[in-house]
Structure formats: C-alpha cells, structure tokens
C-alpha cells in the first residue's frame, strides 16, 4: 500500500533549486533508503515530508506530496497534526535537557494524549519498543543527557513512538554512532517497520543495502533512480547510479 506519493516536487532555498521534479512512491511498513553524495538534496527531501524546511526563511516547495491521500504542501495543512503523524530523528541525538521520563512524556503532554497512570504506561511501552526499558527502568529520573549516544538516539525514537506516528523520518541517524551501536539501531529499525513506515537518509551505502527494502538515489537535486534495494545494488538501470554505488563517483 502506498502511503507517501510525491509528484513533481521542486524545492528552492532562495534562488538555489535543491530539488528538481522529484517523483516517488513510498510503501507502508517498508524501509526506504535515500542515498547520494553530500548536498544532493536527500536531507532536504526528507525535511519536506514533515515541513521542517518551513523553519528556514525564503524556502519554497512546488508540486505535490500526498500522505495518505492528503496534499501536505497545502497551506491548509495543520503542521501540528502533520508532525505528530510524521516523526523525525536527527543526525545527532537531540534529547531535551530533561529527565528520561520527561523526554518521552513531552509529546504526550503537548498533544494532551495521556496523563497520570496512562502516561506512565505509554512511557514504558515506548521505552520497551526501542529496547531501552530494561536498561533504564530504574533511572527514569536521570537526565537524558547522561545516556550514551546510542541510548540517546533510541530515546529520541521512543519519544516519537510515544505519540503514535505512522511515518518515521531518519536523517543519518547513525552518523554519530560507532559500528556496534549502528548495528543495534539497524536491528531496531527492522523491528519497528512492522508498525511504522521508515524513510532513512544515509551516507553509508552498506547501511542502505543492509536495512532497506527500497532505495532512491539522489544526485544534484534529482532522483536519478528509485527501485527495490536489491535491484539498485545489483542491477542499476542508470549509469550514474552504477558509478556511485561502485565508488566511481565522488
């Protein structure tokens, strides 16, 4: 089932066109990887999906991005609802300087989703979902900043899960982590995809090959090729894709 449908998306930072006629269909409950060299627009694309680019002045998006049939580029879209539905994990783990508990409770409180016992339950479930509960159940009052980077990134995921999103956007979620921690996050992604649709931007081609079901290759603002991951890495149709994945580009 298609959950995200992007049609002829153009995106500009002032006069610089960062995305050129991007077309893409993302299937629900799959992991979709976006690869490409630095500055090719893959992060910009990701940030279009929850309209985080709105924070930057002078940006402009044209085209359509439909999430569950609704065009989210429309000015009538409620950004609060959109971002609740489409969560985002950043390159560097960014837990709030609050306790572990309060980090996860944050989304529930601002959206008034739960309180009291129910809130505690959801915090627990969210930590369990990212396999942190056993490690942290006695330390919920500690500052989230005291955790290791890997734990922090898991916490950021669990903070999203608490508000029950449908789509998780991950902008190079492992680039601040060591290889062991990276593998653990990747294992977690495999578990999470049962319940969520995941889009991951990564510099790391092995990572894309390991975790994703579909892969899109971006170059200079264009989506050069989009296909099943197996196909992209074994039989790419475009010469540029082949050059990139075999290391001849950049």
């Amino acid at each position, binding site marked *: 089932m298609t959950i995200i449908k992007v049609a002829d998306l153009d995106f500009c930072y002032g006069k610089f066109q960062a995305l050129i006629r991007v077309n893409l269909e993302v299937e629900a409950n799959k992991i979709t990887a976006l690869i490409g060299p630095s500055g090719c627009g893959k992060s910009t694309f990701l940030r279009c999906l*929850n309209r*985080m680019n709105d*924070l930057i002045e002078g940006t402009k998006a044209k085209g359509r991005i439909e999430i569950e049939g609704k065009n989210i580029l429309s000015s009538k879209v409620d*950004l*609060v*609802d*959109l*971002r*609740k539905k489409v*969560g*985002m994990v*950043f390159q*560097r783990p*960014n*837990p*709030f*300087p*609050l306790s572990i508990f309060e980090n996860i409770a*944050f*989304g529930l*409180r*601002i*959206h008034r989703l739960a309180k009291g016992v129910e809130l505690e339950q959801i915090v627990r479930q969210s930590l369990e979902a990212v396999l942190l509960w056993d490690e942290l159940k006695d330390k919920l009052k500690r500052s989230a*900043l005291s955790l290791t980077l890997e734990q922090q990134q898991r916490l*950021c995921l669990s*903070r*999203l899960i608490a*508000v029950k999103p449908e789509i998780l956007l991950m902008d190079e979620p492992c680039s601040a982590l060591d290889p062991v921690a990276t593998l653990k996050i990747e294992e977690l992604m495999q578990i999470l995809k049962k319940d969520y649709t995941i889009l991951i931007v990564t510099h790391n081609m092995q990572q894309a090959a390991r975790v994703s079901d579909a892969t899109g290759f971006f170059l200079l603002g264009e989506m050069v090729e989009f296909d099943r991951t197996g196909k992209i890495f074994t039989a790419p149709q475009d010469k540029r894709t082949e050059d990139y994945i075999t290391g001849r580009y950049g």
Partner: protein
Amino acid sequence: MTRMKNRFLEKIIEAAIFLSGIVAVLIVVLIFIFLFKESFSFFVKENMLAVLLGRNWYPISDPPQFGFLPLMMGSLFVTMGAIVIAVPFGLAAALYISEVAPAWLKDILKTGIELLAAIPSIVLGFIGIVVLAPLIKNFFHLGSGLTALAGSIMLAFMAMPTIVSIIEDAITSVPRSYKQGALALGATHWQTIRRVIIPAAFPGIIAAVMLGIGRVIGETMAVLMITGNAAIMPTTLLQPVRTLTATIAAEMGEVIRGSSHYYSLFGIGLILFIITFVINLIADLVLHRRRING
C-alpha cells in the same frame, strides 16, 4: 646586544600586564580591608548583633541608636519590588527578541535596551519625582508618592538592560537541535519555548536575576531622590523607605569625622559590599556550572 634588549623589553611588558591584572584584584581587597578596618571598632563598641537586628536608626539622638534593620529592610523592599517587576518584563522582552522578532527589529530592540542602561540614574530619579511620584500618590491616595514602590519601578528600568541581555544570551545559546526536536514532535512555538527553551536556559535566567539584584541594590542616586528617605521599618511598598546606599549618601556629608555615626556609615558600606559580593558570586557559580554542563 639587540637580543638582550628584546628580552629586557619582553620582561617589562610582562611585568606591566601582570601589574594591570593584579591591580584590579588588589583594589578590591584593599577596599574590603579599608571598610573592615574603619567599621571594626564600631561593630565591637556598639555590639554587632544589636546593630544588625536593631530596629531604630537614630544616629544623632542622645544616646544614638544604630539599628541597621530598617535600612536593610528598605533596600530589601526596593530591590525585591524592582526584581518582581523587572524579571517578568525582562524575560518576556528577551524571549521576544531572541525567538519572535524579525532580524531587523531584533537589532533595533537590542540597541534600544542597551541605551536604557546609558541613562544616568539621576535622570531616572528626576523623572521619578516629576512623573512617577504624583501618579503613585493619586492612584493609591497617599500623602506622598515618594515610596518604596516608586524606587522599585525606577530601579526596574535600571535592572532591565542587564536582565534582558543576559537572558537573551542564555536563550540564544540553547542548542538549535532542542528547538528542532520539539517542533518536529509537533510542538507549537510557544510550547517549545515554555517546555524546552526556558528550562534549558534556566541557569542563565537565575544568573540574570542575581546580577539584576546586584545592580539594583547598589544603586544610590535614584533611590535617594524618590524613596522618601524615612528610616522606618517598612511593612508595605507604599511606605517611604531609606536604603543602605541612600543612608551613606545622605549622611556622609554632615557627619562628624571620627564619631560613632561616621564609623557606622562604613559599617553600612561593609554590609553592602558583602551583599553584592555574595550575589555576584552566586551568579558566577550558576553561570559557570552552565558552561561546564553545556
């Protein structure tokens, strides 16, 4: 030959820099010793506890009474009043400047607030007498508008630049990733400010309050002009009060050198010095801890 000359020059420059550095510290120490020496015999003679807890300040009666308490209460009332007024406004102003205002307005506002710091305190005192005191008098139906409240309001203006610029600094140095994280979770701008930015900037806000207090408690000219200068124990902000600073300023000119009264003024100076020192120390510690954690 030139090498020796260079090395000699080097030594002189080093010594000069060292001297300028050490002089500031030395002066502080000397001032403290001076105040301590001048007031020591007074505190011994008049019984320190009786002075600090004495409720009557009649330095030229016979026998004189040197109770500091009404003066300390005067300073406390005026300072607390000023802080209660200045902190909410200062926080709001800092939030507006750092989070809401467009870039061009930001610069204008910041310059404007810094200009506020450049207004001589006597001018604020003057405005206080001519404009503020009559307003307070009419509004509260008082005999005179020269009250602790008038002092608090004028001093709030004086504390604002310090408070705004330090809070603004603290807010600006909150990592952008916190804000992004909150917004990406669907938080509104205001929720982000209240639940993430203010808690993250909290040490800076405390430091701003402390430095604001330090600024206000040492202020003399404006309070001398507009607080009414009655050395009585205040119970509300609508009474005239006399602060520690105003007492020294008002009485130093007429006091008989070498009398107990003369030395008592040094005692007041010492108390003020200690208060501001402790407040600045707390502010410094809070700010320093933030830097280590950040």
